[in-house]
């Protein structure tokens, strides 16, 4: 039935192999692009088949073991895949978006050196991401988990000749590794603690079937989940490990769209969803997750306020949105979290691709005019809506979605999160408040972005002004599809209150994911309780906040463009802090990076060379030195030799006769 599930990751892998090994020989960009895209598309088709099959299947959880991996009693790890609603959804998400972005890349990456490399990496990424979401045990997930990190590293450092790019790639990998450290520790602890109860396993199904053996809310569970959460913060760019994501914008834009918005960064959320049974047992961890998520949402949003690089704004926005997802997971709104994951994938991918389209155009123009202006700096843009209409429209739709304007996808998902944050048994009003403020800020900076880019006067250098083209169809087609999804995707999970309003429009997503989350939520009494009217009023408040944010943006960046400058002049220090990302990177450098380097140097040059090796050489020196001293007893004078004999005799007699 589902035994060909392994085909899904296989296709991208084949694509990777073909492009990676032969790409250099093929040379023809079209062929390379086609191979890459087709590989993903095939995988998408197979995914669709199985997904549909799953939809119609009453049995919702399927495991397929392909081969064994490590077998050492009591450890048994297989190469196996798991298909259940959650992984099915992710699988669809990944393959679908990936197909679109591959398509987009054909146009976007045109003419780049190492074109084949890009597609190979992208294919590899998709493969890894599929392993991540489809793995039936924690270790296969970890393969994908690290695999996507690797691809992220490779793709961020795609322009490896640029130091900032390779730095960013390395940073991404290392920070992710910090998270992986947590993941591994969590895994070890889990394996051990379950093993103590007689269940040696790392298979998700068995884990969730046996977690009840552990003490509910106990220390072990808390430690395990905290460790896993540390892993999630690394991958999903949460406080404290978020710093790599904004830097990751050094990669080509499709990469940002696919990896750093739609798929990889959501892995943490997915992982928590995958192990919801375990996390639900640790309320303390859940609280930590919610707090971290909320804080990240707010914190990243503040930084997003003052960035001028179009992609950086989107990057911080991503961090912020991921924060929402964690907030959702933290308050037990698993479905909402996954929902937001999906809608965010749609609109954020669209936003990134749209920004890519803009950059593409700007780059084209600057190139044409032989200018070296930054094509990503929004201060060089403005008024592009006329030059790039399709891009503008799709971008605007997605922005509306992210801002939470009613009936766009973002509205439904974000609103449900905020509602749960307030009303969940594990929620708190403060969490809601943080989320709401962040939502307002999001609306503000997103529209700031839109206004600065597409509205107002064209601030582009006059020489380049007239050479900004609309992107080709291969670029705009994915934009349009994504914009459509961003607009209507929310219908997947219409909240009950709204659904009831129009006559039992079901929350399809919740229903679909019920086999995964329902049991947990029941078991741990996680639910959002509140009257419909309360829910409505909250909805209204959040809409109001969003509108407020948009309006402020409109006032500041359309109506009265001098205003921002004035505000900045009033609070220069604050602005500088925000602009410089609250100096967190500098702080980390000072706290971790530099001390580690200094420690390394110290250990090497002082401890290792002087002390440890010095001791070794010192022993040798002492021995030789002793020899050199002793050597001078051999004076060559017969008298001395005779004397030594006599003294020897005297001493020996003294010792042995008069002992």
């Amino acid at each position, binding site marked *: 039935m589902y035994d060909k599930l392994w085909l899904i990751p296989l296709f991208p892998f084949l694509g990777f192999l073909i492009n990676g090994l032969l790409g250099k020989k093929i040379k023809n960009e079209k062929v390379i692009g086609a191979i890459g895209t087709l590989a993903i598309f095939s995988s998408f088709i197979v995914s669709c088949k199985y997904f549909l099959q799953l939809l119609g299947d009453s049995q919702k959880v399927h495991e397929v073991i392909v081969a064994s991996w490590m077998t050492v009693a009591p450890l048994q790890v297989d190469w196996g895949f798991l298909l259940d609603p959650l992984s099915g959804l992710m699988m669809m998400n990944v393959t679908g978006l990936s197909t679109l972005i591959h398509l987009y890349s054909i146009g976007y990456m045109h003419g780049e050196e190492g074109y084949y490399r890009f597609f190979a990496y992208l294919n590899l990424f998709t493969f890894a991401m599929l392993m991540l979401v489809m793995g039936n045990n924690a270790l296969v997930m970890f393969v994908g988990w690290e695999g996507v990190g690797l691809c992220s590293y490779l793709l961020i450092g795609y322009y490896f000749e640029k130091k900032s790019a390779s730095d960013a790639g390395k940073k991404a990998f290392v920070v992710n590794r910090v998270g992986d450290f947590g993941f591994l520790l969590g895994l070890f602890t889990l394996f051990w603690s379950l093993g103590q109860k007689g269940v040696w396993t790392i298979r998700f199904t068995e884990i969730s079937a046996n977690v009840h053996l552990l003490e509910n809310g106990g220390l072990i569970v808390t430690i395990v989940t905290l460790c896993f959460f540390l892993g999630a913060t690394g991958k999903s760019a949460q406080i404290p490990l978020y710093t790599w994501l904004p830097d990751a914008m050094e990669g080509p834009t499709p990469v940002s769209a696919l990896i750093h918005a739609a798929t990889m960064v959501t892995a943490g959320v997915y992982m928590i969803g995958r192990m919801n049974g375990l996390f639900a047992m640790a309320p303390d961890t859940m609280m930590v997750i919610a707090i971290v998520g909320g804080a990240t949402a707010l914190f990243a949003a503040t930084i997003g306020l003052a960035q001028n690089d179009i992609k950086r704004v989107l990057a911080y926005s991503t961090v912020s949105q991921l924060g929402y997802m964690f907030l959702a997971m933290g308050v037990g709104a698993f479905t909402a979290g996954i929902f937001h994951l999906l809608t965010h994938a749609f609109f954020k991918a669209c936003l990134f691709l749209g920004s890519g389209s803009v950059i593409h155009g700007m780059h084209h123009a600057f190139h044409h005019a032989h200018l070296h202006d930054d094509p990503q700096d929004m201060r060089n843009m403005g008024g592009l809506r006329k030059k790039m209409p399709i891009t503008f429209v799709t971008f605007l739709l997605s922005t509306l979605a992210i801002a939470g304007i009613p009936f766009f996808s973002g509205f439904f998902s974000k609103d449900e999160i905020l509602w749960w944050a307030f009303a969940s048994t594990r929620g708190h009003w403060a969490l809601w408040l943080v989320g709401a403020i962040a939502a307002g800020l999001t609306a503000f900076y997103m529209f700031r972005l839109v206004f600065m880019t597409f509205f107002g006067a064209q601030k582009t250098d006059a020489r380049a002004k007239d050479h900004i083209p609309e992107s080709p169809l291969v670029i705009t087609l994915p934009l349009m599809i994504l914009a459509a999804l961003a607009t209507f995707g929310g219908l997947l999970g219409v909240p009950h209150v709204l659904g009831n309003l129009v006559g039992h429009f079901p929350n399809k997503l919740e229903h679909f994911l019920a086999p995964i989350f329902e049991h947990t939520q029941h078991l741990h009494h996680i639910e959002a309780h509140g009257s419909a009217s309360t829910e409505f009023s909250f909805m209204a408040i959040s809409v109001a906040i969003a509108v407020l944010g948009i309006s402020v943006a409109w006032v500041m960046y359309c109506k009265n463009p001098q205003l921002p400058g004035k505000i900045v002049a009033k609070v220069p220090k604050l602005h500088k802090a925000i602009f410089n990302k609250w100096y967190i990177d500098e702080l980390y450098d000072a706290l971790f990076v530099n001390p580690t380097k200094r420690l390394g140097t110290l250990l090497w040059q002082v401890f290792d060379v002087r002390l440890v090796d010095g001791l070794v050489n010192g022993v040798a020196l002492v021995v030789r030195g002793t020899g050199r001293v002793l050597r001078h007893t051999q004076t060559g004078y017969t008298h001395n030799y005779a*004397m030594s004999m*006599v*003294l020897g005799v005297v001493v020996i007699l003294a010792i042995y006769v*008069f002992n």
Partner: protein
Amino acid sequence: MELLQLFFFYLVAFVAVVSGFCVISCKNPINSAISLVMTFFCLAIFYVMLHAPFMAAVQIMVYAGAIMVLIIFVMMLLNQGSEVIARYRHAVTGAFIAAVLMLIQVVVILKNGGVSGMVGPNTAEVVESVGHTELIGQAMFTDFLLPFEIASILLLVAIVGAVVLAKREV
């Protein structure tokens, strides 16, 4: 009688020690050599006192007669003048201290230990009656035949060696 013997012993011993001291202290090697001969004579007297007249004779013939003559001859040949004793005073002091320590040790050892009280067949009376030379000869050619033969080899070696070393050309 015994007192006289004792006195005589001390007298000879005194001479032996004094001449021994001259050996080590005379600046002129010839004087040292003469003193050494003196010591040898004293020892020969002791040998007689110890009922070993043959050894006394050998002592005088071999030591005083042969070896010392050889030494003096070489000394003359090399025509060495007198010498300062040693370059370093403290070396001399050290040597004295070491040697005196050794002496003290040996004396204390002798005092504490003493030698075997066993008396073999060749008591003074037997020696008197049989004759010392006879006894020596008897022992030498029966029990000590091998050492005697080895001694001959040793002397041969010494001759060959001396010739090899001392001749002027190859």
